[in-house]
Each structure stands twice: as C-alpha cells, then as structure tokens.
C-alpha cells in the first residue's frame, strides 16, 4: 500500500510514453506527453508527503504542527507551468503542421528521412 503512489507515477509515465509512441494524431500525442509529465507531479508530491502532516501554511495551525514538504510543492508548481507551456508550444506547431500540409498524423510527417 505504501508503494501505491510511486507505482501510479511509474504507470502514468509508461502509459504516457506508450501513447506518444503509438499516437496517430498530433494533438493526441501532445496530451499523452502531458500525461507523462503528470507522473512527475505524483512522484514528487508522493515523496514529500508525511502521514498526518498538514499543508505547509502556518496560518491557522501552530508552528509545531508537522507539515508536508513545501519544497516538492514548489517544484511541482514549476513543473505544472512548464508542462502547460510545452503543450501550448507543441499545439501551435501542430496547428501549423495541419495548415501547411493538411495532416496531423505524426507518421505522415516524414519529409526528413535518411
């Protein structure tokens, strides 16, 4: 049971990569990449969690309360934003790809061979 969080992270990672490999639509591929990225959120927050720990915001709780790790939360915040920006940039490329040569199947995009 104590491994569940990590196993879910590993699973999301593998599933996302599989989606990227097998995708037939660029937009689908980009969302699969986002799933892969979400595995890192689960992994990071899982590592920083502490049983019975409270959210790391001392406002209504006394400072002696055990809290979960704030560092992984800051890292995950960064991670979330990075993931969204990469998705946006890739979507812009996908839109252009479709406009330019009318296809969003990554397998038909093979002008660059050999």
């Amino acid at each position, binding site marked *: 049971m*104590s*491994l*569940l*969080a*990590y*196993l879910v*992270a*590993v699973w999301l*990672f*593998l599933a996302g*990569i*599989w989606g990227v*490999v*097998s995708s037939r639509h660029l937009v689908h591929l980009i969302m699969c990449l986002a799933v892969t990225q979400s595995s890192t959120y689960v*992994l990071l927050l*899982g*590592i*920083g*969690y*502490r*049983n019975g*720990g409270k*959210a*790391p*915001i*001392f*406002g209504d709780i006394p*400072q002696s309360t055990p*809290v*979960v*790790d*704030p*560092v*992984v*939360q*800051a*890292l995950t*915040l*960064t991670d*979330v*934003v*990075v993931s969204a*920006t*990469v998705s*946006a*940039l890739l*979507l*812009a*490329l996908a*839109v*252009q790809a479709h*406009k330019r040569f009318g296809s969003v199947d990554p*397998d038909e995009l093979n002008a660059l061979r050999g």
Partner: protein
Amino acid sequence: MSRRVRYALALVALAALGATLVAAVVDLEPFGHYPGPYGDVLAKVVPGERHTGQLVAAVTFDYRGFDTLGEELILFTAACGCVALLRVRRRERGDEAGAPARPVPSLAARALGGALVGPVLVLSAYVVIHGHLTPGGGFSGGVIGAGALLLAYAAGQSVRLHRVGSIELLEVTEAIGAGGFVLVALGGLIAVGATLQNFLPLGTSGMLLSAGTIPIGNVAVGIEVAGAGALIIAEFLEQALLEERE
C-alpha cells in the same frame, strides 16, 4: 520501421523500463515518510526569517526564487514562440497592423463581457496579493487574470487605439510581468548585494504588506501568467477566427 516493429520495440522497452523504475521506487522511503532535511529545515526557519507562514510561497519566491525566475521566462518564451509560430499567416499576408478587422460582436455580448471583466479582475488580484498568506498566488491568480484579459479582449475587439492592437497590449503586459520579476532579482543585487535577496521590510506575519519581496514577486508572476496565458489563448483564437472568415 513498420508500426508493428515499433510497437514491439516500445512494448519490450517499456516493460524493461517499468521493471527498473519499480526497482528504483521500492528503495524510496515509503509513502508518508518524507525523510527531509530540506523541507523540515525550511519549516523551522521560514516563519521567523520571512514573517510568513506560507512556506510554499516563501520557497517559490524567496529561497528558490531563481527557479521561479527561470520558470517565468519559460512561460514568456513559450508565449513568444506561439506568437512567432502562429503569426506567420499575418506576416504572409503582409498585414502590418497585426490582427485583421473582425466582425464586431453584438452589443449585448460586449456589455456582458465588459461587465464581467471587473469582478474577475478583482478576484484575480485578490488571489494574487494574498499569495503569501493563503494558497493560490501568482500562478492561479494569473490564470484567472488571463480569463479577465480575454473577456476584455473579446469585448473590446472593435476598439483600436491607433495601430496598437489588443494583442500588442497583451504582449507588453506579459513582458512587464517577466521583466518585473527580473527587476525584483536585480533589486536585491543593487539594494543589498545579493541577487534575489529579499530587500524590503518584512512587516508583521499575516498582514497583507509583509514578507518583503514575496508579494511583489507574486504580483509580477501574476501579471506574467495573465499576460502570457491570455496572449497564447488569443493567438489560438485568432487562428480559429481567421480560418472561419476564409
């Protein structure tokens, strides 16, 4: 490589990779037993040193503010990249002024949009400036702000001040946000000799004006996220609209 071969290769690879990853994660401390020390040290020192109980904000904007600086610039760059990639059409058509004239939305739509802008902006500002006290802050507030800017954008599509289109205003907004954070970093260097050092008075914990530069960083990030978010969405909208009219 045929699809079949690719799938076989990927399945074998992912199975092996999965096995090694599982072998690695079983060596982690079990879930719920964060070992420290980084987070624990910070939990001890932050309230006294930074006069805020919002540890995540303190880490994001002060202790590890440099990461946030890089992250802001990633967002800024992605917005620039989207503009550069999506704006080709306009460049191709030699449309110097930027966006083409659009059908004017109905008065009711504009009025509704305009009426909503105010409250949404206030909500966004509230979330942003309380970022060092409560959950939220520059990122969440910024995204809400992006919503407000988009409403204003939709409502004010027919308004055009000289050649400056609304997109250009969004561009400047996001640059101000990103530049603001860089200036906060430089401020520390100039005021106290260490980049990103919190150089403002720390105030009383729990007050709106406390924790030194942390709320300032929050505001800069809020502006940046709002500007960049609205810019990206507006560029995608433009694309959809352009297509519609052809």
